[in-house]
């Protein structure tokens, strides 16, 4: 499973994606993913907000994750 990173999320992780290999514990839902990355990278806990997109749509905490989904961390947006 692969999770895309943008903006400050890239700086926090130091990479443009997070890989969960088959042998890792893999997050099964949006809320699990948020919890796991916040534990591994405390910088996420300091953001104003943290959203997740599944297949390029905002996804609520209870949305399940599949390894074939396109998953992305969406830190606070600031376009315009």
């Amino acid at each position, binding site marked *: 499973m692969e999770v895309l990173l943008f903006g400050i999320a890239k700086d926090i992780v130091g990479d443009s994606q997070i890989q969960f290999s088959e042998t890792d514990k893999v997050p099964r839902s949006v809320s699990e993913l948020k919890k796991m990355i916040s534990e591994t990278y405390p910088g996420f806990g300091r953001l104003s907000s943290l959203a997740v997109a599944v297949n390029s749509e905002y996804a609520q905490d209870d949305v399940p994750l599949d390894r074939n989904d396109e998953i992305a961390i969406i*830190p*606070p947006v600031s376009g*315009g």
Partner: protein
Amino acid sequence: MNKKIIEIVDIIDASQVFTELSDTQSGGICVFVGTVREHTKGEEVVSLEFETYKKMALKEMDKIAKEAMEKWKLNKVIIRHAVGFKKVEAPVVVVGASSAHRDACFEACRYLIDTLKETVPIWKKELFKNKTVWVSAHP
């Protein structure tokens, strides 16, 4: 001509927007252009850098345009955002709408930029002389 123009581009040419929004049924065109300001909270900005999750950003921009066209009677709508490094005075976003009467295009134009700033996955980094800041990232 398309009724809805949704784009993420490297460089914005704001001069073409009225031609893009013009049509025989419109009596008014309202456009907002966001530009790079020299100062933020008193500090001098050298440049801005915009990054996007393009596939999702285009989807979200398209949703906003559709919502606006449902809420108001609009003839044409444009949402165009730039990415990459932008110097002071450069246009970074253009939103606009045309309509028979001016109420609709004014209200829609405001809605387009307000909603874009809330939902579209685009990130702005301010580059100052001694530091860089991802805007709105922290409380």
